[in-house]
């Protein structure tokens, strides 16, 4: 069953079309990555799903039920971790988590246990009495996450939670998200960072200008694009005809030699490197380091959304 089901969603800001008949289905237990450049409509999508924004057209269902601004029973099952740290500077770590958890859980005893668990989950036990101003950027991010997950939601929206975070904290956050998913939560994750999405997401959607451009697993996406495998081989002394022989291989699309290294761009294939090395051995070419890079999500993203700079 799709836990999130968005059909033909249209959202306009005046003359600007932010979402253009957008469709999205997320299954229970997934970590779903929503990728897109700035202004692609990621946050608009999430806000429409959460009913924080009105929309012009379309249907949104969560947990198999229509989502409306007054669907408080559905909202109770959702957690949100916004992009910017949204906590109260006047309250300490425990009070902040308790406050946001209290919006969902009214029983104080139950809440106390949940707050303790959330503090332990993000590793803020030593900072429970600290106010946010005394926390580092990474610790603030962890507090931000704790505030969104303390009530143990079944569906959690993470909106770029690792922006401006050091590598250690980022790693900790990503591990935490995977643990939440392992405990049964469905996660919707938006980010600019391809490696993060590659690392934790089971399915990925690339969207731009309010439209879904591609959706699937990472392998599905890689297969969709023409960007092929890049191969680089150190070979300073290249006998005559070798480069042409490499270029004659059926899967090689482009080839060049800069005096020290051979650069090849190949179609995706299972035995590309073996065939290339076979040609070099036939011609007794002495070569050094060999580097092969299959297409990455970054290649996919750039090919689909274009390489021009965005605002």
């Amino acid at each position, binding site marked *: 069953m799709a836990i999130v089901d968005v059909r033909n969603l249209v959202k306009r800001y005046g*003359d600007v079309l932010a979402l253009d008949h957008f469709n999205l289905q997320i299954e229970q237990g997934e970590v779903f990555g929503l990728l897109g450049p700035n202004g692609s409509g990621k946050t608009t999508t999430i806000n429409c799903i959460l009913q*924080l*924004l009105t929309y012009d057209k379309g249907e949104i269902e969560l947990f198999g039920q229509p989502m409306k601004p007054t669907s408080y029973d559905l909202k109770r099952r*959702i957690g949100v971790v*916004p992009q*910017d740290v949204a906590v*109260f500077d006047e309250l300490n770590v425990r009070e902040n988590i308790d406050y946001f958890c209290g*919006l969902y859980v009214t029983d104080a005893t139950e809440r106390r246990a949940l707050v303790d668990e959330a503090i332990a989950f993000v590793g803020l036990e030593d900072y429970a009495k600290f106010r946010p101003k005394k926390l580092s950027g990474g610790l603030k991010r962890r507090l931000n996450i704790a505030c969104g997950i303390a009530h143990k939601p079944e569906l959690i929206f993470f909106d770029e939670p690792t922006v401006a975070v050091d590598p250690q904290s980022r790693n900790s956050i990503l591990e935490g998200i995977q643990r939440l998913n392992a405990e049964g939560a469905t996660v919707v994750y938006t980010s600019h960072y391809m490696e993060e999405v590659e690392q934790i997401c089971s399915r990925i959607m690339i969207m731009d200008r309010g439209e879904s451009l591609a959706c699937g697993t990472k392998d599905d996406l890689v297969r969709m694009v023409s960007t092929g495998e890049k191969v680089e081989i150190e070979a300073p002394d290249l006998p005559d005809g070798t480069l042409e022989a490499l270029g004659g291989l059926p899967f090689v699309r482009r080839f060049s030699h800069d005096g020290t290294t051979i650069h090849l761009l190949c179609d995706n294939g299972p035995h590309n490197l073996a065939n290339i090395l076979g040609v070099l051995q036939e011609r007794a070419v002495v070569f050094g380091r060999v580097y092969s890079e299959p297409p990455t999500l970054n290649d996919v993203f750039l090919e689909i959304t274009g390489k021009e700079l965005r*605002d």
Partner: protein
Amino acid sequence: MQVFKAALKTFFRHPIYLLIYVVWLSCMGLFMGMSVNDVQSEEYVQRPNVAVIDRDGGQLSAGLKAFVLGNSVPVEVDDTERALQDAVMQERAHYIVIIPEGFSTSFAQAAAEGKTMPVLQTVVSTQSAEVTMMDNLVDEYLNVARTYTLALPDAGQDQVVTRTDAAMEHAVDVSVVQIAEAPPVSNSFLLYLQFASYTILLSIAVCSAVVMSRFGREETRRRIGSSPIPQASVNLQIAAACFVIMLVCWAFVAGLGLAVFGGKLVGVGTDVIAAAIVSLFCYSLFGLAFGFLVGQVTSNELVMNAASNITGLIISFLGGVWVSLDLVGEPIATIAKFTPTYYYNEALHAAFDAAGGGFTPQVFANLGIVCLFALAVFAAGMAISRWKVGRMGAWNASSTKPSLQPAA
């Protein structure tokens, strides 16, 4: 109640604001109130310095001179132009009477023939109540002398002077009687309450604006908006918390004033005191509305403080807290009528009116205007809130980062 509790915690986590705006400013009000003398039944006699230049030398002029100097502090001044100017400029003489030559004769003739009476030359250095009183006494002496001249046509001027002196010695005994229904007005408490308008505006506006701005941050609104708490309930809880903040500030300011000046209010009707405290409450509503407005305009605490302080100073001045409106020009007095502080002060004075204070129609009318000011400022805050939501939507149209929808 989660939002309500968090809002109050936010308020109480700003002890500096409480200390400066509520406690310290209230203490300043106390000091100002204590500096005023409440005792009004003391005898207050002050005689002006008076010089009499008698160029006539007649019996009437001699009698007048003796009378004037007997009711003042006599000052010797030479009858030269320079000496007269110096006496006035140096304020050695507050009042100088110059009796011209031939005054006694022309006075008697004019009185007998019903012609225009000759006038004295008088010079006043400083206009004051004492000098005015002396001027009236001189006029009164001459009127009595004129009456005797008419009534006793055969009498000589010496007899007229004797009878006039005797008549002028008669005085009516006056005593101050305290009437139970007309309580003494405590100027100390009144001044404290006037100054409290500044205290109340600043304390409530800054504290409530800080709380509102915390909940007004976009990401916080987003987080709260996605929770299962209805937005109306969230708004209501924040409003309730701000109302409690207002009550705390009002109760502290009013309670402190009553505790310190309570002794001076013995004999003052409870309705008068209640009317004054209710006036302060109505003005507190304006402070709350102003805090709401400031909270919508900015979330920068420095700007909040600056805006509240500057506005507080200006409308307190225009309301007559710092300088009596009797001493300012007509244009400023007219502008003052466009501030709530003016009507708050009018309500206070009406409540303390010795001729019948308490909850008079005048008090209600002025407090009604204060409440209307509060309503107008609140409406302006609401308009700005709506405009901001619209503006964020427009901005997001270019970046497609969405804004939040208006509170339901």
